[in-house]
């Protein structure tokens, strides 16, 4: 079934054939034919953003909250370069995206034409793969292949750079029977011998811990279900990375909370003391491991990852299993049941005893105040008042992001969108736009900082245009709080350029965009105002004025090990000077 059409029409057709309903984009000279094709149809809805970076983050929010690939359309030159930060973000967090960029006509490539840039050259390092399509014959295959590559194996962003003359050319469109790449075949099924060895190791473990990550989310809802089953079967404790939150219900007793730099005391100490670590879909990121040579010194390690290059990259493992989390988990659950494996009950009881001891330290406790809103309190209230709804949370980057990860309890996968690997301020608002589009009836909240929010603020206008009632909840501490915290730790409290000077009036700003502005500075009024925010069916900016001095704890300072965590009452207890906690070598690290 082949049809004759232009390159521009092929783009829309291929998107439709891939089941794409929404694309995020911004027009320009080099994509006008595609915009004309969009004009002539109504199957694929185009969401007009206000900045190309916003388009990519929106597509990321869409993808992460729905499990479907996100699609972006931008013009050549500045359109493409504006999209770079988003692509790099998606690359780091393994988000499946297809980004179509316009390019100058083929005969002008290389001539420094108006709005020409070497898009495939520039994006080579921040995409999983990219294509420059130089002939109309290649276009249908490349478009479908792009979706295959973006979604299969370790997901990631794929760029298709499309010169304008190819968009005008007429050719034959055939939907390929399979959109597979001709040779790219990532391994999804784990090696059974290794899985067997893993089960054996787990059954004999005395102090085991599951350490799971974004790979479980990427593997689909089924992977989360299987993970829950395996964790219940074994009775082992489980901790999760920032990217993996929600794969396992946070309210469950076996869940120790997030681990890593701002992880819980119990999660990090369990990692430090464990004898068997079962890493499923996480990558031993430096925010997780802290000082490598002191990382989990007593453990044998199992690592399940779809990307072989993640295995043994920084941390040596004993049993590597290359494969997709859901596939491997399925085998693990079956093998555990078949062999009627039993955990070492007595040892486990001891282990849980130890863990409960750490837990009782209540590391997320804080001293609340009746006068000023503590950021932790604000998030606890936000959580309590939204937990019974279908709620999706995105964040910006900073202290508020870490507090959100600590105080929000995610029960389901795909409910949590944050920029983990790239740490991109400005991610949260457009990501909320994308998530709201994918879930029109859900409550979507961007937990923001007053500094981060100003990086992609223009996307408020997008939210208004498409009636997306997103809520921007700003923990306004008038500081780039995370920067201030590091300056206290590393630079003697010299707050160089980290004060948020000349802040806009966020309430008026919300109103200027046509949304609703709410301000709160009294703990006593918080609940009522949060409810007011939830009940408005329009975009809201909530300016929550919080304690300006609060720091985010627990914290493993750079260059320290899991058992050298700082707790929030650290200073009170030891009387130590916060500026002396990190030594000279640690200051070199980020």
């Amino acid at each position, binding site marked *: 079934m082949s049809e004759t059409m232009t390159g521009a029409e092929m783009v829309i057709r291929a998107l439709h054939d891939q089941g794409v309903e929404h694309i995020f984009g911004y027009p320009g000279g080099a994509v006008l034919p595609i915009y004309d094709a969009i004009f002539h149809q109504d199957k694929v809805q185009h969401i007009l953003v206000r900045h190309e970076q916003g388009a990519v983050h929106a597509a990321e929010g869409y993808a992460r909250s729905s499990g479907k690939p996100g699609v972006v359309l931008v013009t050549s030159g500045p359109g493409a370069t504006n999209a770079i930060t988003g692509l790099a973000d998606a690359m780091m967090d393994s988000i499946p995206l297809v980004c179509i960029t316009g390019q100058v006509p083929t005969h002008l490539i290389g001539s420094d034409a108006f709005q020409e840039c070497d898009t495939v050259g520039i994006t*080579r390092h921040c995409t999983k793969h*990219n294509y420059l399509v130089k002939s109309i014959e290649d276009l249908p295959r490349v478009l479908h292949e792009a979706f295959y590559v973006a979604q299969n194996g370790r997901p990631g962003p794929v760029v298709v750079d499309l010169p304008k003359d190819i968009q005008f050319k007429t050719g034959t469109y055939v939907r390929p029977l399979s959109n597979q*790449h001709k*040779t790219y075949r990532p391994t999804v099924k784990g090696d059974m011998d290794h899985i067997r060895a893993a089960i054996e190791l787990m059954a004999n473990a005395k102090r085991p811990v599951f350490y799971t990550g974004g790979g479980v989310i990427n593997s689909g809802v089924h992977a989360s279900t299987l993970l829950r089953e395996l964790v219940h079967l074994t009775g082992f404790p489980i901790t999760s990375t920032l990217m993996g939150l929600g794969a396992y219900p946070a309210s469950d007793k076996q869940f120790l909370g997030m681990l890593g730099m701002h992880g819980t005391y119990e999660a990090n100490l369990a990692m430090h003391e464990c004898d068997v670590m079962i890493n499923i879909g996480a990558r031993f990121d430096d925010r997780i491991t802290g000082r490598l040579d002191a990382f989990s010194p007593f453990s044998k390690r199992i690592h399940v990852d779809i990307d072989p290059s993640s*295995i043994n*990259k920084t941390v040596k493992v004993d049993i590597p299993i290359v494969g997709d989390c859901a596939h491997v988990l399925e085998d693990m659950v079956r093998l555990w049941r078949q062999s009627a494996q039993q955990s070492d009950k007595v040892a486990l009881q001891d282990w849980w005893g130890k863990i409960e001891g750490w837990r009782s330290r209540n590391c997320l406790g804080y001293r609340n105040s009746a006068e000023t809103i503590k950021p932790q309190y604000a998030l606890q209230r936000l959580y309590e008042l939204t937990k019974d709804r279908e709620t999706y949370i995105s964040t910006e980057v900073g202290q508020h992001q870490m507090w959100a990860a600590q105080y929000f309890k995610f029960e389901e996968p795909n409910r949590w969108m944050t920029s983990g690997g790239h740490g991109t301020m400005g991610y949260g608002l457009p990501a909320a736009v994308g998530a709201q589009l994918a879930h029109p009836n859900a409550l979507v909240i961007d937990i923001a900082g007053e500094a981060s929010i100003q990086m992609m603020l223009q996307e408020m206008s997008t939210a208004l245009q498409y009636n997306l009632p997103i809520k921007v909840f700003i923990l306004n501490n008038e500081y780039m709080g995370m920067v201030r915290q590091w300056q206290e730790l590393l630079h003697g409290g010299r707050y160089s350029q980290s004060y948020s000077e000349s802040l806009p009036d966020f309430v008026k700003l919300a109103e200027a965009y046509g949304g609703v502005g709410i301000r709160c500075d009294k703990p006593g009024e918080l609940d009522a105002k949060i409810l007011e925010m939830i009940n408005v069916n329009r975009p809201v900016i909530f300016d929550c004025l919080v304690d300006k001095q609060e720091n985010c704890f627990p914290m493993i300072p750079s*260059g320290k090990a899991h058992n*050298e965590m700082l707790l929030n009452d650290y200073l009170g207890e030891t009387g130590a000077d916060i500026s002396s906690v990190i030594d000279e*070598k640690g200051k070199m690290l980020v």
Partner: protein
Amino acid sequence: MLQMKTHYPDATRVEPSHRHTLAIIVDNEPGVLARIAGLFSGRGYNIESLTVTETEHEAHISRITIVTTGTDSIIQQIKSQLERLVPVHRVVDLTLTGEAVERELCLVKVVGKGDHRVEAMRLASAFGARTLDATLTSFVYELTGTTDEVERFIKLMTAVGLVEVSRTGVAAMARGAEGMGGLSP
């Protein structure tokens, strides 16, 4: 609190580095070489030598030979990172598969008269180099050999009027009856 001496990302173990020759089979599509070279520079790996040409025209498949050095774990990372690239079909570490045959070709131009000229001719014949061009004052020699042989040849020729060198970099193949695949027998 433990007394800490080191911090990541400083390597704590000092592992020995070795020279490895990798054969990489790739789709010969635009940008594939940039992808591979960019991977090495972006992740801080060395390239000591790089050779590439399409080896199967029908299938548009190229074979890239890269000589690199690194610790065992770095070499394993390089291999995994290369395999992650979409157009890469296979990566074989020829150094691990047993002693591979490695050759490179070099062209050298020597200019001189009298004793220098005579000595250049003697050296060339001692190394088994072929004479590709000769004038009354110059020679162009071709030598094929291991990297070490080529290095020695060039060093000696420097003393007798070397003015120009062109080298291909290493081409390599595993010994024995087994093929690396790709080509149908």
